[in-house]
């Protein structure tokens, strides 16, 4: 069998089971379907070039997530240099959210749901890329902080303090405190 064909087949066999999960992570990191697709494509380019480095791993997913995270940081910085950090493509998410498989809620519920989705995405986008990765991996995808530390290559103590700040900012942005800010507590 052709060596090139074997290589491609092995690569596809190794990556295919993780593609959907990686796309979900990419979406949470970037906040839009178009950017998630771009990020996943870049990830696959890089993973294929580095295939010799990780093909022997029993559990390659953390490797893939780390590459995804690093690419996300790179793309974020490039975008900030070229377009400005606030020029996001959140509007495209309204369409993406519309396209999600939903049991057709009423228009009022739909509108409210869309608004909530937008608020969450905007709150995530307001975080820095490193913070967003931490929130995605730990608070949304459920990785332990030790796992996140290995994936992001950030010391555990740094992650903990970063997480504390992230939570505080998200609670403020999403108004998740039990009482309005103007209510004085005992």
């Amino acid at each position, binding site marked *: 069998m052709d060596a090139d064909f074997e290589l491609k087949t092995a690569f596809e066999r190794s990556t295919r089971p993780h593609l959907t999960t990686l796309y979900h992570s990419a979406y949470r990191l970037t906040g839009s379907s178009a950017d998630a697709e771009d990020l996943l494509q*870049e990830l696959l380019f890089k993973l294929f*070039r580095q295939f010799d480095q990780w093909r022997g791993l029993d559990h390659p997913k953390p490797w893939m997530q780390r590459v995804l995270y690093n690419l996300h940081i*790179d793309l974020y910085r490039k975008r900030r240099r070229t377009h400005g950090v606030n020029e996001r493509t959140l509007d495209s998410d309204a369409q993406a959210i519309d396209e*999600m498989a939903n049991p057709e809620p009423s228009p009022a519920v739909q509108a409210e749901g869309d608004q909530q989705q937008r608020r969450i995405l905007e709150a995530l986008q307001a975080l820095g890329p490193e913070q967003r990765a931490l929130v995605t991996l730990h608070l949304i995808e459920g990785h332990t902080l030790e796992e996140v530390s290995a994936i992001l290559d950030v010391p555990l103590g740094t992650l903990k303090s970063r997480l504390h700040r992230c*939570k505080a900012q998200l609670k403020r942005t999403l108004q*998740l405190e039990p009482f309005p800010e103007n209510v004085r507590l005992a």
Partner: protein
Amino acid sequence: MNCIEARQAIGHLDSGVRPEGPLAEHLGQCELCRQHYGDAMLLKTLGSLKVPEPSPQFLEHALQRATDEAAPTPAPAPARTAKWRIPASLAASFLIAAAAMLIWDQMPEQQAIEIVEQRTPAENVVALEAHRQEVRIVIHSNDEHAAAEVSIELAGNLELEGYAGQQRLAWTTSLKQGANLLVLPVVLHNESGEIRVRSQFGQASHEVNVHVARKSQAGRTAPLVEPFAPVNA
């Protein structure tokens, strides 16, 4: 209400629901439970974020592109067959540190010229000893790029082996960080010719011109290659 009861009650609240009654009263007095409420609501809220599914067509296409366009390892040397390989490429943001080498088929030693951030035009000539030789262009990039547009134009009775009659070739390729080798199996039918290599990625494009001549035309002291000139980097 004590803390245990309060946390059980918080567990039953939907995302975004404000506490009322005894729970609100407890939270108003207990900092730790207020913290717990905020954390629980945050997890529920983030967990409600819907993520669209990728289209199967996109996933298949992305896999296909990755294996078609990204070379897992740089090709070390060109095949002498007609199908020459261009494993890597040119990039978005060159360091403008490039080297071009003429590999002599018969000679034990190699002649090479280093080009580092030369921007002024120069009379650069590659001197061919043989009718067919390989011209290697090594490009150093400061970053990886998945889809650089590369084109080669030939003039003056120059051909690339295996591409007879084609004066222009263009393709999309990947670029790895560091050295990228572009091997051109040049066939010279006349006394001299010209190769122009262009790359484009995003807003940046770069170009290098290599004048190729037979040894007798090139002279012994002529510089061998022309530096990359950033066009609109």
